[in-house]
């Protein structure tokens, strides 16, 4: 049956309804599909989280052992003042005290500005390692004095002392000389490392 123009006009509304309904149906399918994809993505995230938690629970005995072992180190770091902000005044006090105790002839030092060493991700917050490089010039009677100085420095705490370099050279004074003139010059670069745990309770 061929439709005339007036007849076709009567069909416009039903055709529009057809297009609208089918379009709405297709849109419904597409939207539902999107929701399904999102739900599947969420499921995979939650499943991975559950698997991770389950695995953690299974390893809890090992973890307990690990925590107990590491907590001793952590507490020691805290006790030594390595954890926390820099204590430059305490460093200066310690060096002054060591010089006096050891009777070092000459001791000069210079601490460079603090720099970031590494930042490790934690939960919550990061763990930031900082280093301040100290250059020490020592005038020594004997090489052993250097070891004593380094030991005293480590024992004084307030940082982890990582020696980067040390140069020892003779001053030329003969060992038989009776005076207390320095016989060895030592120059060391030492990193004074401190740790800031952003997740730690204040």
């Amino acid at each position: 049956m061929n439709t005339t123009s007036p007849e076709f006009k009567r069909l416009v509304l039903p055709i529009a309804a057809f297009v609208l309904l089918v379009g709405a149906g297709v849109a419904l399918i597409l939207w539902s599909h999107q929701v399904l994809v999102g739900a599947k993505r969420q499921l995979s995230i939650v499943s991975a989280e559950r698997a991770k938690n389950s695995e953690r629970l299974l390893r809890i005995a090992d973890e307990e052992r690990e925590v107990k072992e590491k907590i001793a180190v952590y507490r020691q770091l805290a006790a030594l003042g390595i954890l926390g902000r820099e204590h430059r005044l305490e460093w200066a006090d310690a060096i002054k005290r060591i010089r006096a105790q050891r009777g070092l002839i000459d001791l000069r030092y210079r601490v460079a500005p603090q720099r970031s060493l590494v930042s490790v991700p934690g939960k919550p917050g990061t763990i930031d390692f900082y280093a301040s490089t100290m250059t020490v010039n020592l005038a020594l009677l004997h090489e052993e004095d250097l070891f004593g100085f380094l030991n005293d420095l480590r024992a004084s705490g307030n940082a982890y002392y990582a020696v980067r370099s040390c140069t020892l050279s003779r001053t030329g004074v003969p060992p038989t000389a009776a005076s207390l003139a320095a016989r060895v010059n030592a120059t060391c670069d030492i990193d004074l490392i401190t740790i800031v745990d952003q997740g730690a309770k204040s």
Partner: protein
Amino acid sequence: MATKRLIYFTAAELRVYRRSRRTLASEARFDTDEAGIEAFRAFLSQHRDALLYVVADLAGEDFHEDQIPYLRGAERRTVVERRLAQRYRDTRLSAAIPLGIIKDERRNERLLLASFTNAQQFTPWLDAIAESGTKLAGVFSVPMLAPALAARIGGRQAHCIMVTVNQAGLRQSFVENGRLRFARLEPTVNLAPDSLALFVRSETARLASYLGTLRVVPRDGTPLKVFVVAPRGARARFEQTLTSDASLEFVTIELPEALDRVGLRGTPEDSLGEALYLHLAAGNPPKDQFAKLEERRGYRVWQLQRAVAAAGAVGFAACALYASAIWIDILTVKSRTADQASQSRQVAERYARITRTFPVTQTTTDNLKATVNEFRKIAARSPSPEGALAHLSTVLEQFPEIELDSLAWKLGTTESTEGRNRAAPESAKRAVPAGERAELLEINGRVNAAQRSDYRAITDKVERFADTLAQNPDYSVVRTRLPFDIASEGTLTGDIGARETGEAPRFTVVLARRLR
């Protein structure tokens, strides 16, 4: 939704009924004169949205059986139209009802050609409908609807006569294998039930006799079934009068029961058997009818509108069904997600309960582990110089003639020793490959208690000193600079005969320990 209106057309009048799902209500009545037609036009103008079904109940309806070649599509239509044109002068109200295929060699199709001998009485009314713009669903005659009524009343019968008492008169229709073969209408003028029953009997006998002459009824001795729909309250009289015999087997049903069988619950008080046909025309119209396609265009467009809208609805329903299936998946996935989340939470809570029993710290377990792990890495990369110097000190005790000038200890990477480290032992070269992080100790010294000119003894002492340093598996000698450059690439110098300066020959040894 268009209201279905049924137009019952007889020689005496035209009645309009409004049909709802199971009821029929009389709406208007028009005489078959000019005034009646005008009133009908006025009625139609007020009901332009109506869907009209015309059912004609007229005497003088012609039925003629014919055969045409078995054809399909446009060819069949052409042949049928030609046969109708040959049979009837006015084909506007003519129809060809298929009676089946004759399975002989020629494979012809049987047709029952039907029309009204006096179509003129009918056409002004159809013209009025066409002009009104209403939707004409079809024009039927009562006999066309008789097979459907016979099926509802008498079930499947090979041959039967359907008899009803209508407003137009006594309608008799002969049905063969569910198809109309013949029908007639005899006027009944206010007959009493007894007389009407007798009239039914006599007219049925006449019809059966006529059908016998046409040889369309079986001659195997089985009586021909006659289903009679008696008017309300006349069943007993009819059953008393219409007794079966060897040729006719009467089955009498009262009108209310017949109405119930066709599914009609309410009818006008004065309606007779025509209500049955009208209800069937609107509810289950036969495919064959008298109106031509042009007269039914409005109805076809209306059908097309509904079909397009229905297709849209079906499309939406199909999409919704598919979307429902997706949503079942979504709900399943969400349920699994909720289960997994719940399990994850329970496991995390168990973990938290257990970790609460761990020693208390100022930080979390994660931060604790990260802090200590990273600190250990840094510590491992930060050895103290004491170890290397102690090792050197031990070795020096074996070489009193060697005196140190300076020591340089540092952390760094070993350089490539190829080509300039010929004095270093092979095992030491393998121990610390070039580019590795290592603690390096550069030893600058001199060899005392030896003649400067005794370069063999001096070289031997320094090499033994270096070898002894490298005997510790942790250390290796990566570079040695001898007082005399005996390497092939170097320049060998000497001042034989010159005066001794007294200065001891100097050397350099670089010791390395690989950091792990």
